[in-house]
């Protein structure tokens, strides 16, 4: 169980965050959550999919990072090989305090069990005067953006449901080694339904700012071949 602590200059004066991106650092994930506000930046690099969480009765958006459990094809030589890192991954190992989700109130928590923590290597959180470093300032900003967008995303997914714009994805991926991987449990934008929407439905989506992320999610599908190419390169070069 992760051990979360409230971040303070006094207790984390010498704490550094190792910038390395690797499975050992906890980055070995097949997919990760993205929020609608970052679809525009994510669609350059990732395949954006939707996933129904039945237990919690909500839909989330994710980006696909690999095909097998624990496989993140964007990890390369200790770096995250993409121009954009999803917010959820970028803010690791920080999170917003559970009992006070208002980031402006300073409730930034840190996962004390994260392998990213070090006293010698990486980036400091506080400078010698106890002020947040530019790195931590950036993290706090991203945490705020993530939190705001995540909570606002309920409306986006409600709109998708209202207009019945999601359909289950059935996809078979043939790889260079002859194997066929099946992607199951994801949903994508139903393109036919989207095209058939009438003017008032489009107006409804547009007014609430949902049209842009819908099209960004659609556009992101062009990244699938690139993801398969990453997988094949790995299969070929070991």
């Amino acid at each position, binding site marked *: 169980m992760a051990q979360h602590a409230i971040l303070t200059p006094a207790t984390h004066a010498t704490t550094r965050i190792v910038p390395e991106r690797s499975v050992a650092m906890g980055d070995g994930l097949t997919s990760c959550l993205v929020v609608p506000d970052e679809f525009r930046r994510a669609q350059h690099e990732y395949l954006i999919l939707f996933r129904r969480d039945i237990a919690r009765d909500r839909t989330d958006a994710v980006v696909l990072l690999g095909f097998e459990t624990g496989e993140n094809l964007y990890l390369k030589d*200790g770096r995250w090989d993409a121009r954009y890192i999803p917010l959820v991954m970028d803010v690791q190992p920080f999170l917003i305090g559970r009992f006070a989700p208002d980031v402006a109130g300073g409730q930034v928590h840190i996962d004390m069990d994260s392998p990213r923590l070090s006293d*010698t*290597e*990486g*980036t*400091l*959180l506080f*400078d*010698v005067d106890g002020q947040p*470093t*530019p*790195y*931590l300032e950036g993290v706090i900003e991203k945490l705020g953006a993530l939190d705001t967008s995540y909570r606002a995303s309920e409306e986006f997914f409600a709109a998708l449901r209202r207009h019945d714009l999601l359909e289950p994805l059935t996809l078979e991926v043939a790889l260079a080694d002859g194997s066929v991987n099946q992607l199951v449990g994801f949903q994508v934008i139903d393109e036919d339904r989207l095209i058939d929407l009438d003017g008032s439905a489009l107006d409804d989506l547009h007014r609430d700012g949902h049209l842009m992320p819908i099209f960004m999610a659609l556009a992101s599908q062009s990244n699938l071949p690139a993801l398969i190419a990453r997988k094949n390169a790995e299969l070929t070069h070991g």
Partner: protein
Amino acid sequence: MPGPHRRGGGASSNKDATRQVADGTETRSIVIVGGGTAGWLSACVLAARIGEVATHPVDITLVESPDVPTVGVGEGTWPTMRCTLRQIGLDEAAFLLECDAAFKQGSRFDGWRTGAADDRYWHPFVPPPAVDSRALVAGWQRHGGGRAFADAVSPQPAIAALDLAPRQRDMPGYAGALNYAYHLDAGKFAALLARHGAGRLGVRHVRDHVVAIVRSATGDIAAVSTRDHGAIAGDLFLDCTGHASLLIGGALGSGFVDRSATLCNDRALAVQVPVGPTTPIAAQTISTAHEAGWLWDIGLQSRRGIGCVYASRFMDDDGAAAVLRRYLSRAAPGIDYGTVPVRQLRFRSGHRERFWVRNCLAVGLSAGFCEPLEASAIVLIELSLDALLANFPQDRTAMDVQARRFDRLFHYRWDRIVEFLKLHYVLSRRDEPYWRAQRDPDTIPPRLAEQLMVWREQPPSQADLPHVDEIFPPASYHYVLYGMDHPAPAIPPATGEALAEPLTLLRQRTRALAASLPTQRAYFDGLRRAAAQGPASSSGLR
């Protein structure tokens, strides 16, 4: 970047050991007399780079006496060393590990203005933002937030004050977030260069004592006679024999130009103090003024080199020992002074009348020596080799012309070094007899005295230092001049607006660097761990 210039087997190059040098003879063999930093750095640089300039193969031989100990206290380099090491094909991580080296980000001068407890200024390697010198000084006064000059216009003092490394370990070798040089163990450095030069670059290494210098009928040096290897002939000789100056001073009679009237320090007591594995490693040379000279303090991974430079005219050896002891008890507590061996060095600041005579070039201490205040010894070796390679005599025909041009260039450089070192003293307000004597107008070079008058009205600029490759650029003068509290000239304040935005960016960058750079200690701990785990970074060649 050129690859290491490999030559064929060294044994075959010995065939014409008795050939005489005559006009028109191609420069096919270079003989370097003397090991140590100068000899081996010369051997490696020439072996690696001669192929860029020579129209024919050139053999490099280094004759090193097993009897003569090297001086080996030159422990500070300039940033130029990064380029030099890369050119000769050494891996930076391997170099750092083998030479017990640490990063140097400039110098800190303590006690030079008044000797008060908070009397301190920096001469960092990162220059100020590239604006006109008037805009720089006016901008510092207007937008510097009341900070001292170097602290306002360079990110480096703040970084070095935190003992941080100028780079992260995963950066490519020799790249830095901030400009840097090295502190190193000179003995280990010469040994590494010897292994690299003889093992990888095809330098022929002769371990023998030179007993005589053989002249040809024209007066050139034809060969050096050795005890066991006979005569070793060459077309061009490099005198790297240190203070002995065996070839250029001894055989060729190039006289010594004494500069001690300007730079009166003539002795040093040097110690090496081991440090614990968890102590911070200082990121700059610390130069602390004392009543009759100054102390150096240079941090390596496993030791600190500390020395007391003094003028025997103002302080006797016992007095210097007491100064050193006081410094150690304050700066390196826990050291039993009685158990640390103390070496005394005696020197006279000055240089040769000519640095290149006939077919012989002086490189290193044989060319001259000034007190080590700005670590000019090793960089002069690099500059001499750069100048030789840029003007390499393909044969004997133009060699005397090249020699005269080389002499002019290096006279200019030595003059600038002497003046720049003197600048550190003439601006002091310390009141001891030594310091008053340092300010005696009779000891100040006329050109420096003139410039000091000009600098009351305008900051140092290109106009004062017109050469393309000045050894000390205007930025160095700015750091010392305004670090020493020389009054800034009156400049219309609006001129300083050009610096407002660069200073804002610089402060942001400083904060980001302070957060992301590792301490020097953490850097080298990590480097050693990585070297112990994988062979990737432990090979000698990149």
